[in-house]
């Protein structure tokens, strides 16, 4: 059974939605809703802020108090809301044009102030709502209706800008790499501080077709060619890498003083959820669920592994199993498993 409880967070009576068939925003809306639901976020503890554009319409489909700002101002609004109401979780849903172009100044300064807000950027590399004009993240050479000979300038490198100053949390994922996408949403929502998820998404009708793609799926394949997943948490991501780049604030060292180490909150063993073999077997990556495996009494989340992305996810034979014994026969050591996050304990 697919867990459809996330639908409580959507205004289902307003469906069908306004977006074109094949658009990536539907996937963003659904998976963000699933992520919010999983973490127990609802209209009483969360506010949604969105900007202008196709992606800005997401707030209107959600069962939350949603603030739909003027073009480009979503981050400023979100920052002020968080300041005035620190008890609220503040989530921004917007697009590359809104956040990167008209809201570029606010992106620089809001990220610098590091408020505890989470930003999901539907990065479809085009101005879709207005008919397909080149946007700030449109790759150089792309033909659009305002770049008939191909976009002249290199794209805005959101990943470089947002990792220039510590602390930062920048994740890049695509709507195609579903498990990675889900893991990024979850990590970003859990992060304390300004977290930004750059979601490479497709606009088939107003961008893809002009480039010769016939279906949204062809665009997904193109994302798979252009990007590859990197494991674990990095300091930086290259332009073709999908993953999470995260860095703590640099500790200022005063002359003659020892730098103080910040204490990281440890996850206590007793806080971890216990899974039976039966429960574990359901978390097998199918139907959009994460990929968990059991190893030496612990449950590891392998969803972000590059080995299990796209269609390979469906063929993942080890998902949902206890692999303690299998490790001996494996051609690799246990370090391959140990680097993934521990999410629970296995009831023997």
């Amino acid at each position: 059974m697919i867990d459809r409880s996330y639908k409580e967070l959507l205004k289902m009576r307003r469906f069908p939605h306004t977006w074109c068939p094949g658009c990536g925003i539907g996937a963003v809306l659904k998976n963000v809703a699933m992520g919010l639901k999983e973490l127990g976020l609802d209209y009483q503890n969360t506010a949604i802020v969105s900007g202008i554009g196709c992606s800005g319409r997401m707030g209107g489909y959600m069962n939350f108090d949603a603030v739909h700002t003027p073009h480009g101002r979503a981050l400023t609004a979100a920052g002020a809301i968080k300041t005035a109401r620190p008890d609220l979780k503040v989530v921004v849903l917007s697009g590359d044009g809104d956040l990167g172009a008209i809201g570029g100044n606010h992106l620089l300064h809001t990220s610098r102030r590091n408020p505890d807000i989470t930003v999901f950027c539907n990065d479809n590399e085009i101005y879709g709502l207005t008919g397909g004009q080149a946007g700030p993240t449109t790759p150089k050479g792309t033909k659009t209706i305002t770049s008939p000979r191909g976009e002249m300038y290199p794209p805005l490198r959101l990943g470089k800008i947002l990792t220039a100053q510590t602390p930062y949390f920048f994740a890049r994922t695509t709507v195609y790499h579903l498990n990675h996408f889900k893991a990024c949403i979850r990590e970003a929502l859990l992060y304390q501080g300004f977290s930004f998820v750059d979601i490479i998404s497709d606009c088939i009708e107003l961008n893809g077709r002009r480039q010769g793609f016939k279906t949204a799926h062809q665009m997904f394949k193109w994302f798979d060619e252009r990007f590859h997943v990197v494991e674990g948490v990095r300091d930086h991501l290259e332009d073709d890498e999908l993953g999470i780049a995260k860095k703590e604030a640099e500790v200022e060292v005063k002359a003659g003083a020892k730098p103080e180490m910040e204490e990281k909150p440890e996850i206590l063993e007793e806080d971890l959820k216990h899974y039976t073999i039966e429960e574990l077997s359901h978390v097998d990556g199918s139907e959009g669920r994460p990929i968990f495996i059991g190893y030496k009494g612990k449950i590891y989340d392998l969803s972000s592994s590059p080995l299990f992305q796209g269609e390979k996810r469906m063929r993942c034979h080890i998902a949902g199993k206890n692999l303690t014994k299998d490790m001996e026969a494996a051609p690799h050591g246990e370090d391959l498993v140990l680097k993934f996050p521990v999410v629970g304990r296995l009831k023997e």
Partner: protein
Amino acid sequence: MKQILSGNEAIFRGAIRAGATYFAGYPISPTSEILQQAALYSEEESRFRFLQAEDEIAAAIATISASLAGVKSFTATSGPGFTLMQEALGWGHVVEAPCVFVNSMRVGPSTGMPTQPAQSDLLQVKGGSAGDYYPIAFYPNSVEESFRLTVTAFNAAEESLSPIILLADAFLSHLYEIVDLDVIETEVIPRTKESLGRGRRLFTGTAHDKSGNVKTSDPANYREWLRELKERHFRVAEKYPLYEYLPCKNSETLLIVFGITSRIVSPLKERFSVFRPIRIYPVLEREMKEVAASYRHIIVVEGNDGQYASWTEWAIGRKVLKVPCLGGGFKFQWIQSQIEERLKEER
């Protein structure tokens, strides 16, 4: 306790009296002191939050967003900054965010003459943002009145559910007078609009129906929405028909002045009747018509090229004489000679 305060300080104290707990701003003369006061006050009072934004666009958006989040908020700027805030002002009217925008006017357009005083942002106040909306604006002429009117502006904001504009000028902002704030009694209207995190509403600048559903092609819905907004704003404005009228016996001439010009021409009140609108917008149409009826000549003395004069002509339905004080030139002798000249031309 009696103290010497500037107009800017009085505005800030007024906001605190009204219960404001959020200020966002960007440095600009002549209101930087309000930003500085906010920064200092946020150190003393942890409930008070302050943001020095990256520009006036962000300051204005933050002010409105904080208001939606449930706190009383305000911002302060001058002409060029106020221009950048127009986008947010339009948004604030549609999402019904009670807050206060202070605009202390200096010579424009653009950077103009920093920081010579002017009164030339009236048209910007009335309709600087796109579309039809009905802002309410007040304009004090003394330090004490700046304090009182700031509280009034916050109250009107709560009642009209909109950003209220409090005008000042570079003179008034930096004018120091002796006041005793402790003896000034004010009535404060508390926040009643429900803050974020309590419902499933959509606060959008796009046209929408009452339950927050976007309606982008429904003229009937839009008409009804605008009618309600207009009615509410005019009803609240009616509650504050603020003006000062000083009749002078045997005078056939009425001077219409406001803000700093009313202070400068005050020696002339022995010779001419003086009418000072305090609610600058919506224009005091009925009040002005009644007062103007008994005068042969109406002269509007203002720090711009006839912005309020044209509103006066529209309100009272006849021609008025204009004395535009341009480029920060507010000398009493010059204004007096200009008034004499206009009257001579009429005779």
